[in-house]
């Protein structure tokens, strides 16, 4: 009848919702609500409610595809890394700050850097980087005007309640995204040239996100808008510790986006990929193309707390404890330090052993945590920074074609979890022109193939089809498709 209860943070996105994970005597896992968590008051979204499934597949250490002990896997990883050529290391922010720091130590030993996979850091001037850090979510509630360039209902659901509070407090909310939002007073499909019509000022807040597939031009346009109007800008981030991983980066300008890394692998310039709780097969829009690229690697080494598609094909998997059991901290999208109650450090210990195997010094959890305090604590307070960047020029990517299938990136898509989101969103004009039957299907054809999907009618721009799950016909975040009723 004994139960073990862990206080932890939801790995669904960067908001950092607090919750309990309850391990029952039979090993099963359930969630419980941490109502005293100031971030979410115990509330969870659909992804958080499905965490027992997320945690149902713990990772196993593997050496050359065969289940092995963690120590054997570490030695095999060391052997491969010693003889490797150009190594790319990726930690997107799916684990604790302390593990991320330990991974960075390994990168120093290997003479490389840790990439977080978000391309805008490389593509934007460094003086912009501080403005990509989040602001306190409570301050959103006091804004007079809010412009949304995200769909909070699907992408960052725990943001919805903040926006509803803001609305009750008198904020005027404008959705400038691709989908009509119930909570918005206005839903506007604006081109960047029309942003002046938003009439923002210093009491306004712009809410957008940066993630592994954010187009830097879009981010530049939003930063320009903030600069010109004096509005504050808040960027949401997709992973539990995206904020921490990016704040911890020493050389943000040197960090490659995940697409860039995959391009280099495809070209054969990168032959060794070393991952910390980051799965390109989940994060890239086209899993087939990504799998083909990964096949070109000489070494694919993965440190992971859960089983995912990448652990199936890796040469070496070093398994660590589930995220909720880890000792360590996370920094959420508003810059708050969140802490696990778990005390396990198998991940740090494995990386320490690997460091020694590579001829460097080992390390302990407390050193990693100490470094975090030295480096980060003083920067956690989020003052309203004055912009120190200038207006940036950019040319947006043009998408030609009759219809564009667009990914609506959300926690289920990043984590490859099942959900009942097996439909696409399209507008009434498309339903009428294709004479779609209620309850029927729509066929999507791209250069990759064809598939049938259920559909739901939403107010989205003409010619746009949105999906909240990864589809086999997709070739990128935006895919040109031909659509037919069926």
């Amino acid at each position, binding site marked *: *009848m004994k139960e073990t209860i862990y206080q932890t943070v939801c790995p669904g996105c960067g908001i950092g919702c607090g919750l309990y994970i309850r391990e029952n005597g039979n090993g099963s896992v359930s969630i419980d*609500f941490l109502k005293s*968590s100031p971030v979410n008051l115990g509330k969870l979204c659909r992804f958080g409610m499905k965490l027992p499934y997320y945690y149902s597949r713990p990772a196993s250490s593997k050496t050359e595809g065969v289940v092995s002990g963690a120590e054997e896997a570490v030695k095999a990883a060391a052997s491969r890394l010693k003889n490797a050529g150009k190594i790319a290391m990726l930690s997107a922010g799916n684990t604790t700050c302390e593990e991320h720091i330990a991974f960075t130590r390994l990168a120093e030993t290997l003479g490389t850097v840790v990439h977080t996979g978000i391309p805008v850091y490389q593509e934007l001037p460094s003086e912009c980087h501080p403005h990509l850090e989040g602001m306190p979510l409570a301050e959103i509630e006091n804004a007079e005007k809010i412009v949304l360039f995200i769909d909070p209902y699907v992408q960052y659901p725990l943001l919805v309640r903040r926006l509803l509070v803001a609305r009750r407090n008198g904020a005027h909310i404008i959705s400038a995204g691709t989908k009509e939002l119930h909570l918005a007073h206005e839903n506007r499909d604006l081109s960047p040239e029309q942003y002046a019509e938003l009439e923002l000022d210093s009491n306004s807040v712009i809410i957008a996100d940066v993630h592994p597939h954010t187009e830097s031009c879009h981010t530049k346009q939003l930063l320009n808008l903030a600069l010109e109007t004096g509005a504050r800008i808040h960027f949401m981030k997709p992973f539990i510790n995206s904020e921490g991983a990016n704040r911890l980066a020493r050389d943000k300008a040197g960090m490659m986006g995940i697409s860039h890394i995959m391009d280099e692998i495809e070209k054969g310039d990168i032959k060794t990929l070393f991952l910390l709780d980051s799965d390109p097969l989940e994060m890239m829009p086209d899993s087939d193309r990504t799998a083909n690229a990964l096949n070109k690697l000489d070494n694919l080494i993965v440190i992971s707390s859960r089983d995912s598609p990448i652990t199936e094909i890796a040469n070496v998997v070093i398994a660590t404890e589930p995220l909720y059991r880890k000792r360590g901290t996370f920094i959420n999208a508003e810059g708050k330090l969140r802490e696990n109650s778990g005390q396990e450090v198998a991940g740090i210990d494995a990386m320490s052993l690997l460091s020694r195997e590579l001829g460097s010094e080992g390390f302990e959890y407390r050193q990693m945590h100490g470094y975090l305090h030295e480096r980060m604590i003083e920067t956690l307070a989020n003052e309203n920074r004055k912009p120190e960047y200038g207006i940036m020029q950019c040319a947006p990517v043009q998408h030609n074609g009759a219809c564009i299938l667009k990914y609506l990136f959300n926690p289920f898509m990043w984590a490859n979890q099942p959900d009942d989101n097996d439909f696409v969103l399209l507008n009434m004009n498309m339903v009428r022109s294709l004479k779609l039957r209620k309850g029927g299907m729509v066929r999507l054809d791209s250069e990759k193939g064809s598939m049938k999907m259920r559909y*739901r009618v939403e107010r989205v721009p003409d010619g746009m089809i949105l999906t909240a799950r990864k589809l086999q016909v997709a070739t990128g975040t935006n895919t040109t498709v031909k659509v037919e009723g069926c």
Partner: protein
Amino acid sequence: MVGIGDKLLGYATNPDVRNRGASGGLVTAVLAAALEKGMVEGVVVLKRIDEYEAIPVITDDVQEVLASGGSMHAVPVNLTKHAVGRKIAMPGKPCDVRGVIEQAKRNGVDLENTYIVGLNCGGSMHPVVTREMLIRMYEIDPEDVVGEEIEKGKLIFKTKDGEEKAISIDELEEAGYGRRENCRYCTIKIPTNADLACGNWGVIGELAGSATFCEVMNEKGKRLLDNAIEAGFIEVQPADEKSIAIRNKVNSAMLKLGDEWKGRLLTEIHDQERLTYYIEQFADCIDCGACREVCPVCTCGEDSKCTMFHSLADNYKMSMYHMVRLLHLSDSCIGCGQCSDICPVDIPVTTIFRRFADPAQKKRDYSPGMDLQRPPFLELMLK
């Protein structure tokens, strides 16, 4: 030996338990004795994290039960589901007890194996709201609080330095603080539906603060109390007329206040406005399903009607999920407030459901979760 219907004053014999418990540690000692003597396999206790956070755990360790105790008004959890499929003893607010009885009607809980020590409840508070209230209304640092109590219509906080500060609940609630909304209109304050109904109302004189008023509600309650006396865990004495009268008076005052809130919040929805009201209220729902998951009376499991008839791909203006749940819960919603607490978009789910269920329950003079005598009016009772 005690008798059914007895009204007693009692306390734990262990001085530590007596001092630590909110009212003499009787409830803690009764639960510990039930475990010690093998009446149950486990006890549900609130594992205290701090003054504003605790988590229910089931333990088979008597010492862990004895180490628990103390009232926590700012920890609004419902314990019902911890009773499912287990032979346990548990403390319970009236809504916990009502949840267990609704589960029993659907064979989710075997009442023969479940002992419930009921606790009087004037209402509970949300921990984060409570912290804000302490700063703004009481001008107290939340970290300095060492205890709280509701007495004579006032919410009292005690601080590390021995100070007490009291503000009337009316004043707090007018300012948007105080009890959770559902607690304000709750009309069961003394858990007469439990095996024992315990609390500090009616404990006066030299026993005030160090004893519990306890009413034996049924045969199981008698067994619990006899067991604890026999094990030497508690001592009891009959409550005098004055104590009984004071307890009744406090209860009447709380019920009157509850009725007033009910009149304010559970107003009738006119036919012309009904559809618009429900569509608008649920429009921001993000389909997390947490309200179903946390509902203490739901026994449906994975393949429930509300989820089977609902699809995210639907274009209904109001989801089938909520339509089915409104109907389904009209004979079983106990107004515990859990669904409102955990709704990620702050939909006042409990009040919406109570506004739907109240007229139906009133028409049939039916209160869910009070006893096993009457079946739910929309369902077959399995028990």
